[in-house]
């Protein structure tokens, strides 16, 4: 019989090792899944993790890593601030949509005028839209004690309906021959979030994601607000005695994560996606939850985890076209990763002991 013994202090070594163990376990379990689907498991795993980085067409896929990774990192950084303090923003997907709508809306309002100030205004608009959408659950929680998990999630479905309404109505391209969807921002110079270095995949969203990582690191380690966040997460009672205002922390964490998710949406709609369409959102807001946990809610960890998750997206696409692996299999694969991570976290906080003849 094996018993669990609580560690006096969480193990640092295991804290770093669990994500790696979880990735390995996911590869094995994922391999079994792929085998069950009738694919060669080794081939499938190699395609997902090796092909985008070192394969024959890696020059094509490597820039894609930045394109897919940037929104994930940006959103996950914001989520991690709240998660650390026990504030659960699950509605990043909705904030991402609203950020894209407000940002793109500003850009389209200026069409066809050209000007250097249009893109910065769109960036502000995107951040504001996400912030405002996330502030709804924050204010309701502070004012009425409403559960932020449920409210932020309900707002995802509301945002999806708003997106449909906008791409069929207000933001619809008047020259689009009646098809739903806005004008393509890629062909509107002042609003286009273009690649900064051609062929690198590097756009403003990638730059802002890197800034967000540094910002979050400094905030958590060198700033009073960061200290309050960590304190609230680790010892809520002590935090209250230390004079932390829970209301302000809730407004800050939710607002911040909303603004970052909104930014991610704006950079996506003005860059890689190009236009507002009914199915513009692809679930980055939910995948970012996995990224945040996989990165141990630590900025640098999130950066690495975002890269890994982007790899599974791109490798998954290659596996789809080369091996005929269904798209949903990659979704299952990502879900498994979170499972194994949470399961192996046991080893961080507890020690496994063989109990010989203990009287229970």
């Amino acid at each position, binding site marked *: 019989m094996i018993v*669990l*013994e*609580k560690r006096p202090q969480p193990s640092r070594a295991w804290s770093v090792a669990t994500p790696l163990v979880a990735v390995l376990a996911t590869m094995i379990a994922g391999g079994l899944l792929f085998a069950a689907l009738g694919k060669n498991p080794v081939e499938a795993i190699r395609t997902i993790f090796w092909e985008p980085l070192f394969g024959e067409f890696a020059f094509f896929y490597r820039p894609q890593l930045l394109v897919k990774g940037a929104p994930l990192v940006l959103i996950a950084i914001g989520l991690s601030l709240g998660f650390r303090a026990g504030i*659960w923003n*699950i509605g990043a997907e909705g904030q991402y949509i609203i950020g894209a709508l407000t940002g793109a809306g500003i850009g389209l309002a200026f069409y066809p005028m050209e000007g250097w100030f249009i893109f910065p205004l769109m960036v502000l608009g995107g951040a504001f839209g996400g912030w405002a959408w996330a502030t709804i659950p924050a204010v*309701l929680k502070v004012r*009425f*004690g*409403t*559960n932020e*998990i*449920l*409210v932020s*999630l*309900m*707002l*995802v*479905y*509301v945002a999806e*309906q*708003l997106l*449909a*309404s906008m791409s*069929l*109505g207000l933001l619809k391209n008047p020259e689009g021959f009646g098809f739903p969807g806005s004008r393509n921002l890629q062909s509107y110079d002042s609003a286009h979030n273009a690649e900064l270095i051609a062929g690198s995949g590097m756009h403003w969203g990638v730059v802002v994601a890197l800034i967000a990582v540094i910002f979050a690191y400094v905030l958590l380690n060198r700033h009073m607000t960061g200290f309050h966040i960590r304190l609230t997460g680790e010892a809520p009672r002590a935090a209250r005695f230390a004079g932390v205002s829970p209301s302000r922390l809730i407004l800050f964490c939710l607002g911040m994560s909303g603004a970052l998710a909104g930014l991610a949406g704006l950079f996506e709609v003005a860059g890689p996606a190009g236009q507002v369409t009914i199915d513009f959102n692809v679930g980055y807001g*939910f995948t970012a*939850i*996995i990224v945040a*946990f996989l990165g141990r809610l630590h900025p640098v960890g999130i950066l690495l985890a975002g890269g890994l998750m982007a790899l599974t997206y791109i490798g998954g696409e290659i596996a789809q076209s080369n091996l005929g692996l*269904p*798209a*949903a*299999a*990659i*979704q*299952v*694969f*990502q*879900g*498994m990763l*979170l*499972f194994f991570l*949470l*399961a*192996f*976290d*046991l080893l961080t*906080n*507890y020690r496994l002991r063989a109990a010989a003849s203990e009287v229970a």
Partner: protein
Amino acid sequence: MDLTAINPVLLIASLMVAATPILLAAVGELVVEKAGVLNLGVEGMMITGAICGFSIAVETGSPLLGFVAAAVGGAVLSLLFVLLTQVALANQVASGLALTLFGLGLSALMGQGYVGIKPPPMSRLDIPVLSDLPAVGPILFSHDIVLYFGIALVAAVWWMLKYSRVGLVLRAVGENHDAAHALGYKVIRIRIAAILFGGACAGLGGAYISLIRVPQWTEGMTAGVGWIALALVVFASWKPWRVLLGAYLFGGITVLQLNLQAAGVAIPVEYLAMSPYLVTILVLVILSADKSSAPASLGRIFHASH
């Protein structure tokens, strides 16, 4: 716009159909939360139940077997939540989210061959005289058996929690797991049983959507009903009969919204479609101030060494 096209009798009858998936999932989650566990994976278990039920019903031609498979599927998926939260002592919020994300992917994978297929129809209860009564007949006596099962389940859960020994022990575990443990109750085992029951109920609710309410399979077709069910437990202050009331309220809004769409009301379809979610938020705001009836150990991890 033609509001006279809305037939109140049919509206009430279809309201009961729309409410049943929420009702089933919510009454299961209520038992789970009464045992002190917060499982946010309802949406994931529902969608898994939806495809398990759908595929088995299509393969066997029997909707009832489909429902059995859905309950089993939901319970099996909740077993993953058991492993994470009861064995590996992981955070319940994160584990529930993991369950939903995993369930959405898994159901999409399982449902690949089933898009565009019609499931076998579920027969309705047809009692000769009663079903033919005007108004009362269509509302009370001509539904499928699962709808009545949902109502009976609420009654059974209410009785179980209030009057039976099992219910007493379950509530004790949810209110104070340390005290329950000291009294010799198997906290973990009781919680595992509750979680599996909740998973089976969510699975049934999901299958009700894919087999009866919208008889077809599409990816992500539960569209947040699982989350509404979670909100409903808060709305109901953890009381079974109020779950029934709340489910009918939400079913009513969903159906009314669809009827208004069909009647061509001058509000764009998208704004009508978001109304159930907005109402959920509104209800949460109104009722969240009172948390006195929540089980005291809700969401806390139990480990015998503490």
